[in-house]
């Protein structure tokens, strides 16, 4: 069953068409990878789904409901959580307070929100940092905080924007472990990622875009073999 559908979604920035008639369907419970070279429109697509800015054309449907005109906070309330590629921790708040602020969405009382926040810190392995100010965290912990904060809004669909970028190999494995754990808890995941090791190993299906247009879609193996994908990443091979 489809949880998220994009129908011919486009976004123009002035004369630049950053996303060009992209369509895809994400099924309930899967990990859906969105890949493409730098500047291909992956993050823009995320920003369209969570309505950081409006789509120029097309329709975005979440659980059968058209969310294209909804505001960011309304989309979040419906059950779409997200992280940011450039992490946005609430710097002058502690890690715990960051997550409490998120947990308030479903648990308006201070006591419940705090309890939930502690639960999510534990789930994501950030409990040792609960009392630290968010600005003092390492990049790996900041990425993890992004995920924790998104999870505390109790999403049905989680959009992960390059949560593995900048991590060392050990941290990378931990990140993969966390993502799989989140999926196991019943959350559908759309992930944008540059690191092929991550995206190839965890995605059920992959959608590849270049210059804002879809160039391939399928299982990781199919996409990895697709000549158009290879060309987009490596440029024209041979023949010169």
């Amino acid at each position: 069953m489809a949880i998220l559908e994009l129908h011919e979604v486009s976004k123009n920035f002035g004369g630049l068409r950053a996303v060009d008639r992209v369509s895809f369907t994400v099924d309930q419970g899967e990990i859906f990878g969105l890949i493409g070279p730098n500047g291909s429109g992956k993050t823009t697509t995320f920003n369209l789904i969570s309505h950081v800015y409006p789509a120029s054309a097309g329709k975005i449907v979440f659980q059968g409901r058209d969310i294209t005109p909804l505001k960011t906070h309304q989309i979040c309330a419906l059950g779409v959580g997200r992280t940011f590629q450039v992490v946005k921790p609430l710097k002058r708040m502690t890690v715990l307070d960051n997550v409490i602020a998120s947990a308030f969405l479903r648990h308006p009382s201070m006591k419940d929100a705090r309890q939930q926040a502690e639960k999510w810190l534990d789930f994501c392995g950030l409990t040792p940092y609960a009392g630290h100010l968010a600005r003092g965290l390492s990049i790996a912990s900041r990425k993890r905080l992004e995920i924790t904060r998104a999870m505390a809004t109790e999403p049905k669909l989680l959009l992960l924007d390059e949560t593995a970028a900048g991590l060392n190999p050990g941290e990378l494995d931990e990140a993969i472990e966390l993502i799989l754990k989140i999926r196991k808890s019943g959350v559908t995941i759309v992930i944008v990622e540059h690191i092929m090791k991550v995206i190839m190993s965890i995605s059920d299906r992959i959608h590849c875009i270049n210059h804002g247009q879809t160039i391939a879609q399928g299982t990781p193996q199919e996409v990895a073999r697709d000549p158009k994908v290879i060309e987009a990443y490596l440029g024209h091979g041979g023949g010169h």
Partner: protein
Amino acid sequence: MLALMLLLPFVVREPYFQHLLILVLLWVTIGTGWNLLAGYTGQVSFGAAGFFGVGAYTAGLLSHHLGISAWWGMALGGVVAMVVAFPFGAITFPLRGAYFALGSLALGEVMRHVATIWESLTEGMVGILIMQTFISKLPYYYIALALAVFSIVLVHQVTRSRLGYYFVSIREDQDAAASIGINTTKYKMISLCMHAFLTGMAGALYMNYMGFIDPHVVFSLHDISIMAILVAIVGGVGTLHGPAVGAFIMVALQEVFRTAGFGGLKALSDAMGGGFMTVVTKYVSQAHVLAFGILVVVVIMNLPNGIVGDWARIKRVFRRG
């Protein structure tokens, strides 16, 4: 602390100093309200005078035109200030960054011009004169104290609730706040309305206490709007007690300059037989705005979190010293 404030007027019997204490308390209220909007919610406003003046005129005009006690106006002053805040917020909050600050700057100035030009309602530059209720300063002192305590308790409660978390989230990062389900426009509006309410109440109390207002006094950019910012910055932006400390310092400082060192400089110049010191005295008494500017630069450079926010740092310096 509260007990001390309750008993203070029995120690400080001089009406002049009681007057200063009342001003301090008014500034505690205004500074605390500004701090909620700017310090906690991150929406820097240059428009405190807009709400202060609206509160003052609400009380003044009710009394002037309808003969209703200006104390009723005090209850209403905060509400009317919120009524002004609402459309203002609706227009400016979808904007980001400096645009809200610029809009708020315009708000105070627009209100000042309205009050100046709309003579049939406001008497324009002539101003509004009403009879004060009390001759003694004590009742005013306690009302101002109640308002100041109310404002601090309000902010204290807010910061420990969901509302406070949402305000601070918006201050730290609006995109992140929206992404965790916070309706940023709505919560900025709530913060603005609280700021407007407190400032409007303070304005109405000012009307009751002083008995006279005109557009230049209550809609003053530097004496109200900038002063509100200074009170919070000097005391500590985003700290609960910062504006209270800042209010005390700023009112004292303003008074030292206005009176040229409580007349000390004048005495000095007389003793020295006029000339040079007379000139100095004259300039010092006019230089309070300049001194405020210098003070802000010094505070921002050395104590970016204000006196309360950087208290640990101040203590360290003195211990070492």
